[in-house]
């Protein structure tokens, strides 16, 4: 049967992959089973909890709701791609410092949602943060420290931008 599966090309965290999989296989399962990127988690399997959030062509998606065929040719970003050259992403640093991760199971999805939020809105106010993370459930933290983490990362990134701007001058 596997010989009639389509060949699907996807780019994950900048790396190209060719996958042979049933077309309706969930992107979540392709990431976890075919590409062994187990950072992306399943919480509910119906798009409610956001644990499986990844970015697909710059959009935040629940990878449990995306058939892999739909991801053909797409560029996917997962939690494994956040840290660069062994250094934690600003959001990861902030989550660590502010206590934004407890059990950690929602964390990869939460980080992707927060990344997506800051990509579109580098300095969100608290209402925008709440809205931006409303699709990602955390049962441990009560969200307070996740909000704080996002605020801290945004502030830090602002500082980094200013420094870069100053360097440029």
């Amino acid at each position, binding site marked *: 049967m596997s010989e009639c599966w389509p060949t699907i090309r996807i780019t994950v965290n900048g790396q190209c992959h060719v996958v042979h999989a049933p077309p309706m296989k969930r992107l979540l399962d392709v990431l976890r089973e075919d590409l062994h990127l187990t*950072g992306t988690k399943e919480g509910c399997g119906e798009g409610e909890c956001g644990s499986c959030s990844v970015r697909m062509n710059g959009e935040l998606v629940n990878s449990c709701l995306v058939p892999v065929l739909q991801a053909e040719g797409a560029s996917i970003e997962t939690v494994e791609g956040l*840290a660069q050259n062994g250094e934690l992403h600003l959001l*990861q640093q902030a989550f660590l410092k502010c206590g934004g*991760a*407890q*059990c*950690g*199971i929602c964390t990869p999805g939460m980080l992707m949602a927060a990344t997506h939020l800051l990509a579109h809105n580098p300095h969100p106010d608290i209402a925008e943060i709440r809205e931006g993370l409303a699709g990602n459930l955390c049962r441990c933290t*009560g969200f*307070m420290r996740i909000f704080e983490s996002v605020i801290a990362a945004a502030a830090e990134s602002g500082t980094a931008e200013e420094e870069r701007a100053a360097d440029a001058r």
Partner: protein
Amino acid sequence: MSTSETTRIVGASVTRKEGVDKLLGRARYVDDIEREGMWHGATVRSSIPRGFIRSIGFDRRIDWSQFAVVSAADIPGDNHIQLIVSDQPCLADGMVNHREEAILLLAHPDKHKLRDAVESVHIEYEPLPAVFSIEESERQNPIVWGADNVFKTFLLEKGDVDSAWASAAHIVEGEYRTGAQEHLYIENNGVIAEYSAERGVTVWGSLQCPFYVHKSLLAIFDLPAEKVRVIQTETGGAFGGKEDYPSLLAAHATLLAMKSGHPVKMIYDRMEDLAATTKRHPSRVRHRTALDSEGKLLAMDIEIATDGGAYSTLSSTVLSRATLHSPGPYVCPNVRIRSRSWATNAVPYGAFRGFGAPQTIFAVERHMDEIAASLGIDPTELRRRNFLHDGDTTATEQVMREPVILDQLLDRALAESNYHAKRAQFAGENPAGAVKRGMGVAAFYHGSGFTGSGERYLNSLAGVDVTPKGEVRVLVSSTEFGQGTNTVLTQIAAEAIGLDYSDVIMAPADTGIVPNSGPTVASRTAMVVGQLIERAGRQLVGLLREHAGLDEHFTRAEFFAASERYRAAKGEVVSLCRYEPPPGIFWDDQKYRGEAYPAFAWSVQVAQVAVDTVTCSAEVEEFWSVQEAGRVINPVLAAGQIEGGIAQGIGYALYEKVLLQNGQMINNQMTNYIMPTAEDVPPIHVHFVEIPFQHGGYGAKGVGELPHDGPAPAILNAIRDATGVSFHSIPLLPEDLFAALAARQAIEEPATV
């Protein structure tokens, strides 16, 4: 012990021990693990609440030779989960007592083949009458468990309640109810099991209590202790929901591994996890209270009933904690508490953060506001007049030997929330607006550690060692599932030994490696196990000084050099300590009297709530929590515990309804079991007042369960303040508000025809 000394690491917000792994997505949860040749398992479950199994048929469309199929007949040992009373079968044998009870297990190399196979097993039943509520169980017809449907009864008596009614200035009665609540950890239950005749059983799983699983596997597989190894994997939330259930699931996966000859992974999906695993016990609590003309409590007569579900599991100990928390943090000379846990044909209820206390604290703290209203006293003033103080005795006649600072906590909570000014402001604004605002308070304690003689029976052992690789390890079976065990215990070890936080790691939570430091439950880890680690750390330094020439002041290098000298002389570098009860602790199990808990954590919470009388939604706008839980080991983690517990408590009060139909949860999806989201949780303000507890790890008491106890009564008290309507049951959903507000409107504005 060490409560007054300055500390370097204890009290600092060092970052979470396993935090970087979690943030990079490389922490290994059970579903992230593969074993060579691994198969997948699934469960065939009962589709009726109670009855005899008459036949099991296998659809011929399926090639069953490709599957491993397990029934109760395959169990080599005792077909029962080993808990307090071992009444719950591992697999149903001839009879089922609740929906979703496991009857048959299937395994196959391809997990996608399992769903169809489960649906292709046809079970015929002879149904028996079933009971689905406390009231139906109380009728004792039919009897569905034991001789009388009663799992456990407690009677607690102090003074003479019956003599108090005649002289009372006021008598106030009330009945309060709480619904089931689902833990909704984001990682569902899951395990991997391997079986070999020579090596025995190895289980990896998402679980709280490795030695609970170990104990059940020994009995079910009739194996000696050394042939069973249970390893906790990174665990994505638990909240009590992975206290007893993993024993069942681990046994199932191991049976399939034994039958198939392959490692077997069983991971529940969300619908199965919600339908088949434990929830918080539903409760009904009745209060009859006598007061004098000043509002001082004269007598409390409390009757508690919980729905325990189909098997006894943890219902007796949940009921015990419910009983001991039911009178609230108040002084009362005459108290009688009669409590019962009833069997029904629901999925067994189990442990959930608070363990019975949130149910009875909801009742007493709602009841205090009803009393205040009935007497015309401010609810905070009524509480103040009755608070426990140092030297007072509780309902079990436990003398409060440690400082009790409820007045201070209340003052702080009222000041931080600007309670009185806001109440006055809202009272002025509410009549004119469709949105009514109110303020509500709850005051409560939570007993830290096991109840009564529990810690003595547990007899926990914990310690530290130094590996030849130069790592200092904390040796405990206490597990991390988000609450901070790894961080707090390594902080304590580093502090006690005199090393840096980065020098200390956790040994794997593997029953083949670590001693039994007891289950990770009951707000006991920082206090009880933390103290064992503190002692073990100091003991290790003592051993190295005595036997390996370590100086009083030492560098890191000198410490590890001394460790190697000690290893050369003695073999291994290990320091273990066993639990010793604090002196003067006495508990009488028969009379249910004495020191119910070694220590109590105390809290006052305030909720500000807005009720929209048009949409009938109630929204918590702001929340304050002031608590004294001993020494705070890690401020960021401790505040995170409080905030998370409050969010769950808000869900318990206003969002989370387990819809049961004939003992079946019919809203077993995240789509329709609703928990608070990032848009629902209000700003939460957390303030600790620290009084180190002499017998806790660096002065710690328990903090994990405390915050879940107060939000429900505080919120419903605020709704009463806002609307003037008293609600006696949770969850309180918009439809409940609609019914009550519409009924009141009908009285106030009778329709003119």
